[in-house]
């Protein structure tokens, strides 16, 4: 039946990122190298892309590269703002804790707290420029992108920082002996953020501000405080993500550390359905977006795609997702179009129960 097919198409469009996610997972799996695995006495060639180790690995990398900062970015995008300084913030906050670990022998937990503090202050500085100095978010965070990277380079004399060995050990921690630490941290960040956004007054006000800031002011919402908080949260996430990323890289941080991470964060959020115009989106979408981006990267490596083509291929997948999204928008618009009279086909109308008096 044609009606049926139409609905399937609509379902696919409405869940385009999820569909893309499954398609990418399936395609890269089928084309990836295989390892013989024995399951219940039968030996089959199991795609390495689908192996639990690889899946864990992809989620872990998604968490540190785009996931945690993507969640922070989701808060900012929900208010129709943007934070371009995330990558630089990650660098600066890890430089400060790294220098302290080396000079005064700071332990892991205090060092983590230092990174969180630097990241949060960085975010607060963004908020200050945006709300007190009234510089638009794009320009503010473009400036702090340069400032943060510059300050970090200055503090390190542009030298690579080698963290003590305990940083590497921290990065390899397995929670309950099985789950890599970054996945657990990511999980906590996601759950707490989901709770804040959907269950607290502040979270709902974030959505309200993103929907219509003038109306929010008139309704008596403290919009300055709400906006300040989202940049501070994004800064906090950057500090956290910076520290954990450094621990994953074996504790070596050079001046290109986390460069352009902000773009993956934005892409993850947007892939997950967060609107750049504010007011729409949620953190679970961002999780899917972040993992999708990582999956494409890993899949390309598995399939030995030319290293120089990989960024383009990744960009293509992001493009595809956004394209589907705009198709969906157009389709929704069409559905919402007001009909003021019955739609008549050129063919004779279907027989209807005859009305009396006709």
């Amino acid at each position, binding site marked *: 039946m044609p009606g049926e097919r139409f609905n399937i198409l609509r379902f696919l469009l409405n869940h385009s990122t999820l569909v893309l996610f499954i398609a990418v997972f399936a395609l890269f799996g089928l084309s990836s190298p295989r390892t013989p695995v024995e399951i219940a006495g039968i030996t089959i060639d199991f795609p390495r892309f689908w192996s639990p180790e690889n899946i864990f690995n992809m989620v872990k990398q998604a968490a540190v590269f785009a996931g945690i900062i993507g969640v922070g970015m989701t808060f900012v995008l929900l208010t129709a703002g943007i934070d371009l300084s995330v990558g630089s913030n990650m660098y600066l906050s890890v430089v400060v804790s790294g220098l302290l670990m080396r000079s005064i022998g700071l332990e892991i937990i205090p060092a983590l707290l230092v990174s969180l503090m630097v990241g949060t202050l960085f975010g607060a500085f963004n908020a200050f420029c945006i709300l007190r100095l009234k510089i638009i978010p794009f320009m503010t965070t473009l400036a702090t992108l340069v400032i943060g990277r510059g300050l970090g380079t200055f503090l390190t004399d542009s030298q690579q920082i080698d963290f003590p060995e305990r940083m590497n050990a921290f990065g390899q921690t397995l929670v309950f002996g099985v789950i890599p630490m970054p996945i657990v941290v990511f999980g906590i960040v996601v759950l707490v953020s989901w*709770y804040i956004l959907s*269950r*607290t*007054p502040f979270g*709902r*006000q974030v*959505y*309200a501000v*993103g*929907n*219509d800031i*003038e*109306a*929010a*002011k*008139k*309704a*008596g*919402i*403290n919009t300055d405080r709400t906006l300040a908080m989202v940049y501070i949260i994004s800064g906090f996430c950057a500090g956290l993500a910076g520290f954990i990323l450094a621990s994953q890289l074996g504790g070596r941080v050079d001046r290109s550390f986390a460069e352009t991470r902000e773009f993956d964060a934005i892409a993850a959020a947007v892939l997950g359905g967060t609107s750049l115009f504010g*007011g*729409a989106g949620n953190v679970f979408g961002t999780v899917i977006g972040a993992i999708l981006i990582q999956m494409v990267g890993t899949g390309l490596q598995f399939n030995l795609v030319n290293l120089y083509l990989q960024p383009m291929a990744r960009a293509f997948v992001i493009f595809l997702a956004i394209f589907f999204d705009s198709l969906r928008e157009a389709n929704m618009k069409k559905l919402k*179009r*007001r*009909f*003021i*009279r*019955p*739609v*008549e*086909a050129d063919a004779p*109308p279907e027989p209807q129960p005859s*009305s009396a008096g*006709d």
Partner: protein
Amino acid sequence: MTAFLELQDLTKSFYGIAAVKGVSLNIKTGQTLGLIGQNGAGKSTLMNLIGGVVHPDSGEMRLTEKLYAPRTPADAQRAGIAFIHQELNLFTNLTIAENIFITGFPRKGVLGSIDTAKIKSLTRDLLASVGLQLDPSTNVDRISPGERQLVEIAKALYQDASLIIFDEPTTSLTARETERLFAIMNQLRQQGKGLVYISHILGDVKKLADEIAIMRDGELVAYEPASAFSIQRMIAQMVGRSIEQLYPPRTAAPTNMPLLAVEGVNAAGIVKEISFTLHKGEVLGLFGLMGSGRTELARMIFGIDAFERGNIRVEGESITSPSPRKSIRHKIAFVTENRREEGLLMSIDIANNISLVSLLDFAGGLISVIDQREMTAAAQQTAQVLQLKSGDIRYQHAKALSGGNQQKVVIAKWLLSEPMIFIMDEPTRGIDVGAKYEIYTIIDRLASEGSGVLIISSELDELIGLCDRILVMSRGEIYGEFSREQFQEETILRAAFRQDDTAIPHNHDGVREEAGKQD
């Protein structure tokens, strides 16, 4: 009926022009104060002063005898003053319940999360008190404008407002929704709330208000019990002179030279087989109820929306695949019903708004540089012709103008491109009596100079007063056609409601009978 809010000698100026001049008023509880005045008379500024959106230059306010000087809208809210604005202030991405409680969610548990069960049950009660049976967790983008209005009132009730200010609340409501709103307003008044009702529909004001205050040019010119006012007197005091005639006399007769011919335009589900001709020097009215397809048709003629079959000719020349650019080249102008969103660049100065359509006419040289001086001079001249009331058009933004003057800017923009065909969709919506008359005069002048004007309006009086011919649209079809000598309000309305047998059934095919029964 004690004085709840006392305004004493309030004054506020913008750009050196006084918007509110020495206004003193007593707003009482248990009463409805009708506030009327032309656009730009200072009503909105006065309300913004009360709401803490802007702050007075001089004068003071007293709330139950204590000094009241709100710095922010939140201060006004805390003082028990609520606003129901013309543009609603609801968040369409949140639920009804969340909208009502957005600034004061009840919390529960150690984590202080929103007590969803509580806001739902409280919302259900609040909605019931304004006669709405909606699920509190419905998203606001799924409910109608009328329902949104009532949700705003429910919100005001929740905030326990003692004074509720309604600013043009009925513009987007159906007749039934308006009735319901008025019933609830009466009920609120009886409960001892103070109400302020601002509207251009003077009959409604007369019906609802206990006292009426009239503003003109920022000053309070009359403030008396409602019984002291007739509609005539209200108009006279708003305008500052009495208007004998609401419509200017037509100065020239239409010709029979076809200018715009619409031939069998069809779009499934929207319009069906629309055919008509607009002649040189003619003012042609297009009447229909809301949702009859008038605006949709206008958009198709101008080339904004696509249609499936049919043809549009300008002076015999067929426009293939119409687009706004092509229409402009064929000297068609489209004054949209939605001037805020579609007609104006609100945060751009007036001069640039006026010259927008004909920008290239002022460009010269190899790389098409705009001659700013010539452009401003031309804009200035058109503004003068239309008697635009504004500050310096080079610096004042369109959003700082009153509704009537904004509409003049939209018309000026098109005038500058010297069109032959004007399509005007609700050109006088939300505009006061004085400005309306000026716009009617402009329309008459355009026709006398040989243009053709197609006016869409839901105000039948206006079309009868202005047009040479009226087409009636109903459910996407042209359902009747009336020439000037046939103009009779009742007959035309009957056609619009499809209750008429005498109307010339234009493309009438009998299939629509059952459609009419749905009403």
